[in-house]
């Protein structure tokens, strides 16, 4: 705490707020909001949270490379560890607590049966390199999920191993590079087209593979400008990377024409499947002419986001790209399941390997449990309810806030900041004020093509009465902002969260990325500091 106290000198602590009216407490805690030091400020030598037996005495075979000093880990007992992380958990917002309208992230309910089956003995405890004869059920499980993914997307093949959406993008774009290579066109097709509204991962992926990224403008309806796209297509273009439904929450209504134009130009169509949840069970991307698409299992199929991962990003592939799918994949030989691993004699020309072992099995298990729980009927309903909920939010707020585009949206409602014009309240302030109302903010300032963007994705998981309360809160905030007298209050928000606005500039200017003993000079008790 010493660092932060030093830094706070001369700071007023922000604008006078409700918090200054609160009586200070001895501990610095405020009821259920408990100040929590770092584990490094809590430990005592001689404490431990495990009981391990005395190791048998053996001859040391460490080649003289025994660690000389201490590692420097603190010693805590089990109850301290439980309390520490429980207290930390209470400083987080989560889907389990309510509406989490983070657009493009699909914060839907994460069923607990998925967690349970992923932990079954015989699934959660399998080693990836056990003899294949001892993991027949695991291989069958992966193949079953693969079957669902292929059928739902209308695509003939799927690469299961990518670890996340961005990793899936890498896989898909490598497959495109491999296909171009096979045709002798890789050297001349060096351009990848991506709409201005694309996820940042799209240009980052294309650039990593040495492609030049050319942005395609959007038209006034928030869709790809078909004429501009056609003008950009040529013999130098390798692929288009397009999200559909797009990042404005809209279905690309000219998708069939786009796909045809791309293929006519000899290029491939990479679809970013981040928003597949809006159309699952209702539209098969294969019918739209897609060549490859990653599927974020943590979005459409509810595997938990876990504070930023782990995810999984299987990639479905068209017949044109299937021969280049990376190792490994599951094959059935008679009644035996086998794994095609590096060096296996196979048809096609695998692009290589992207990840150790077989991919994110734990995510496969959870996604398959979600899929089986919904079935073909339930998945269609998922897409419909997600789209219905987003349109309901849009309709209910259209007179108070300003929708960025006309017409029905898909799974997310996009607003711009026109309604905040001249109020002194920014999109950021508005979002931070939502925190005090008990909500996680929506996605803000993305997509970049909309000024002060606010992207709201309610998902299919919220009851109507909860949506109504959320709508009520946003209306109230918007009206307060528009009153013209509340700008200061908005700038001070949030007031009631475990921390108020954090100084991100300071963090970046003088990065402190780890705890060090010197962060905390002797004689300074972090708990006492926190109380002051």
């Amino acid at each position, binding site marked *: 705490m010493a660092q932060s106290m030093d830094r706070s000198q001369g700071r007023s602590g922000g604008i006078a707020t409700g918090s200054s009216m609160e009586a200070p407490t001895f501990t610095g805690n405020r009821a259920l909001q408990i100040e929590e030091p770092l584990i490094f400020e809590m430990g005592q030598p001689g404490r431990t949270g495990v009981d391990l037996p005395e190791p048998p005495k053996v001859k040391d075979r460490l080649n003289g490379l025994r660690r000389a000093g201490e590692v420097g880990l603190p010693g805590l007992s089990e109850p301290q560890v439980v309390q520490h992380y429980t207290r930390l958990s209470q400083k987080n917002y989560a889907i389990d607590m309510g509406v989490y309208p983070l657009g493009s992230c699909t914060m839907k309910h994460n069923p607990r049966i998925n967690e349970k089956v992923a932990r079954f003995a015989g699934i959660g405890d399998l080693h990836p390199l056990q003899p294949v004869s001892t993991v027949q059920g695991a291989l*069958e499980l992966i193949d079953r999920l693969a079957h669902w993914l292929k059928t739902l997307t209308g695509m003939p093949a799927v690469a299961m191993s990518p670890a996340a959406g*961005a990793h899936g993008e890498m896989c898909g774009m490598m497959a495109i590079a491999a296909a171009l290579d096979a045709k002798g066109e890789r050297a001349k097709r060096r351009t990848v087209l991506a709409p201005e509204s694309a996820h940042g991962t799209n240009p980052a992926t294309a650039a990593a593979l040495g492609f030049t990224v050319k942005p395609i403008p959007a038209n006034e309806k928030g869709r790809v400008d078909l004429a501009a796209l056609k003008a950009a297509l040529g013999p130098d273009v390798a692929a288009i990377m397009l999200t559909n439904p797009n990042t404005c929450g809209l279905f690309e209504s000219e998708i069939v024409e786009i796909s045809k134009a791309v293929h006519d130009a000899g290029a491939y169509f990479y679809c970013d499947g981040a928003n597949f949840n809006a159309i699952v069970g209702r539209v098969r991307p294969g019918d739209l002419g897609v060549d490859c698409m990653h599927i974020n299992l943590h979005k459409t199929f509810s595997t938990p986001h876990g504070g930023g991962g782990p995810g999984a990003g299987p990639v479905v592939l068209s017949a044109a790209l299937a021969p280049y799918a990376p190792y490994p994949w599951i094959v059935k030989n008679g009644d035996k399941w086998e794994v095609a691993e590096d060096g296996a004699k196979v048809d096609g020309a695998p692009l290589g390997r992207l990840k150790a072992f077989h991919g994110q099995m734990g995510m496969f298990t959870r996604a398959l449990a979600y899929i089986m729980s919904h079935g073909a009927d339930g998945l269609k309903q998922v897409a419909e309810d997600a789209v219905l909920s987003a349109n309901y939010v849009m309709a209910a707020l259209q007179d108070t806030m300003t929708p960025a585009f006309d017409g029905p949206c898909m799974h997310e409602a996009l607003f711009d900041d026109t309604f905040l014009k001249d109020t002194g309240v920014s999109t950021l302030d508005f979002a931070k004020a939502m925190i005090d109302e008990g909500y996680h903010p929506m996605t803000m300032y993305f997509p970049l093509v909309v000024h002060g963007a606010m992207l709201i994705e309610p998902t299919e*998981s919220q009851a109507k009465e909860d949506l109504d309360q959320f709508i009520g809160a946003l209306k109230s905030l918007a009206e307060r902002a528009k009153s013209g007298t509340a700008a200061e209050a908005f700038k001070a928000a949030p007031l009631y969260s475990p921390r108020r606005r954090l100084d991100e500039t300071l963090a970046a200017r003088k990065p402190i990325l780890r705890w060090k003993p010197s962060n905390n000079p002797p004689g300074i008790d972090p708990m006492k500091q926190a109380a002051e």
Partner: protein
Amino acid sequence: MRYLPLTDADRRDMLATIGVKSVDELFRDVPQSARLGAKVAGLPDHLGELEVERAFQAYAAKNVSPSVAPFFIGAGAYRHHVPATVDYMIQRGEFLTSYTPYQPEVTQGTLQYLFEFQTQVTLLTGMEVANASMYDGSTGTSEAVLMANRVTRRHKALISGGLHPHYRAIIETTAKWEGFQATIGKVDAEGLEELIASVDKETSCVVVQNPSFFGHVRDFTRLAEACHAAGALLIVVVTEVVSLGLLKPPGEMGADIVVCEGQSIGNGLGFGGPYVGLFATKEKYMRQMPGRLVGETVDADGKRGFVLTLSTREQHIRREKATSNICTNAGLCALAFTVHLTLLGEAGFRRLSELNHAKASQLADKVGALPGVKVLNDSFFNEFTVSLPKAAAPVVETLAAKRILGGVPVSRLLPGDKSLHSDKSVENLLLLAATETATEEGMASLVGALKEAL
């Protein structure tokens, strides 16, 4: 459907508010040719929780669970006991169902544990800074090579033959499609001198593993010196992170980037994933790191807090100029790692490490005493390579038929590779690992069954 709160009445009301007659109207932008009238054909309808559970029990029943079989498999993933507290903690909804902490006011829980995680990783590896985790060790290693290419502005990586074959394959795949050169050296028992001699002014980095894929423990200090003299970086990979409780950390050998597979601490085997990659480097290379970073700062009241920082390296800000396209880490697996390591503490972690080494030593002595079997390692931590008098793959199958999971035949990962251990046929090599979970009875079963099979 138990997960869907909207009733038909709700749906009708909502459609009325929107001003459309049916949900189909909301999908009107979908081209007619791509609209599915009915649900997707050929797939079953929804199931109740009980039916789902039974389906997964049926999958599980077709596998041999390591929980009920003598188990000696490693090769990049290790079976350790994970305290119940770890699994309880990561299933708390506040952690499990939270997103990437973009809104720090309401995600201090995630941010603080990631800051603790970053600190723990620096301590284990002996490095100055660490990121908030990568997908896993294998992908993290490839990211480390790309980072070294950025730092040195060179495009030639030297890869030790002692690196895990999957890791090496990923680097080769990345090299092929992203356009740099990756040269694979000999297995490190013989290859260290060769690597030292091969470093030149074009080399961006040398990638080694400790303990190596074959289990050897090596000091890379001289290699680090050779790298630095040539302006190259040394990347040290650790696939068994428990070894760092006992072994000299890579930072003390002069490593510039350290990548570890963190699965061994807090994370179950899970048939290969999700795992957690640890990624650490020197402070001077901080801004070239891939992935998320958490930093300390203060809030408007002057209280200490944590935020994601240095995001100008990242794809959502820099787009095509980003250091990497990565946007997720392995948040929850990093939490499992942190909780487990916090439970262990200094004393527990070191003892765990000692236990692993002792169990593996016992196993090496027992297996090495079998006729025709030779332990090839002069040094190891909890895994070693043996040569058998016959091909290892069928022997492993024979053991599996007796429900003994007795190691990994090297030929599974290096099929037909003649460059390794030139005096020994790769077909006859077997990797064996023993952790604190190995028992006397289990070892006796393995040794007995091996004796019969040979």
